[in-house]
């Protein structure tokens, strides 16, 4: 256990700048990238598919809308895609289980590192309420954008990217372009 711990935190110089953010240091990004790539590769080899993250959110929305107003999902190809033909529970889905695992894995890692803490992530120049409002707005844009793009940073970026998908690469470049173009306007939130 100690060996694993030291292996994961021996790149101290890499984290020195963000020391105030981190109770314990994060792992070297290239090592993390290598491990993440191997997780992705194992999904390809075992399942014949990559990773994803935005589709389980859509399943929740589709099921919710159907519960509240069954008639409004009929004939809507978007909702119907997530609800299936009604013979199976929509939550009995590969990506739904993958995301449940992701939450568990994130919690375990945070617990080992002492980083699990109830808090709001923000820069020093903004109030908590404002930050929470921005988080909601950002999340809404993400939800809309991910649906339009047929995937998010996991499904199109990582998965599509490593399969050399044309759409995956176009999407990923657009994500970075959009974020860099807007970063200046929202800088008070983070810096």
């Amino acid at each position, binding site marked *: 256990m100690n060996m694993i711990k030291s292996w994961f935190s021996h790149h101290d110089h890499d984290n020195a700048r963000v020391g105030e953010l981190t109770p314990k240091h994060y792992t070297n990004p290239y090592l993390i990238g290598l491990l993440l790539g191997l997780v992705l590769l194992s999904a390809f080899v075992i399942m014949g598919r990559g*990773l994803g993250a935005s589709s389980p959110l859509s399943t929740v929305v589709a099921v919710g809308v159907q519960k509240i107003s069954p008639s409004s999902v009929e004939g809507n190809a978007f*909702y119907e895609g997530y609800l299936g033909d009604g013979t199976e529970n929509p939550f009995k889905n590969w990506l739904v289980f993958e995301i449940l695992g992701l939450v568990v894995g994130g919690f375990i890692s945070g617990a080992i590192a002492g980083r699990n803490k109830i808090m709001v992530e923000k820069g020093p120049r903004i109030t908590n309420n404002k930050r929470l409002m921005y988080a909601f707005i950002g999340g809404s844009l993400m939800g809309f954008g991910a649906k339009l793009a047929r995937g998010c940073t996991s499904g199109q970026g990582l998965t599509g990217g490593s399969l050399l998908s044309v759409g995956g690469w176009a999407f990923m470049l657009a994500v970075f372009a959009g974020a860099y173009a807007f970063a200046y306007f929202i800088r008070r939130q983070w810096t």
Partner: protein
Amino acid sequence: MTAPFFKFGYFNDEVSLIVAFVIGIFFGFVLERGGFGSGRMLAAQFYFTDMRVFKVMFTAIVTAMFGLFYLTWIGYLDLSLVYMSDTYLVPQVVGGLILGVGFVIGGYCPGTSGVAIATGRIDAILYALGGFFGIFVFGELFPWIEEFFVSTHMGNINIPTLLGIDYGIVLLLVLLMAIAGFTGAEWAEKIMANKKKED
């Protein structure tokens, strides 16, 4: 050829859900280790102070890309059985731009918000609620945007086919691009660190 295991019927749907859960655990663990449970850490990418989003993403892509290529080359994996979604160029670019703006405003992307919620970040809960709202809006508007959604369909196409270049050559080009990007990222971080010292 023996992989992908699932496609060759080595296990059924029920087992595939357990596989999903286990792969998810590793996915979440690695993301948290990398600092992706922190919105500030993720947003730092867009202010050039910590470029780990870029470094992690591209190292992961290069690793998986070469892994796929190698396993296909030795005849272990049938790449044609690995699912890749179709390209719809314009909606994907527009969706990417919107998601990118949402990323820097919200501080997360969908997967990282799951990790952030698991580690207690309240803003990530609001982000996910926003995500539900955004998807709901998309779903309700779908009949009006469906035409745009299915426009510029290019089929199941990858970069080597599009450009008519050998798969291996594209791999090398991506690797070179990644190395150039990493060099640039290290350089940008140094400049920003020095700038901070002067302030």
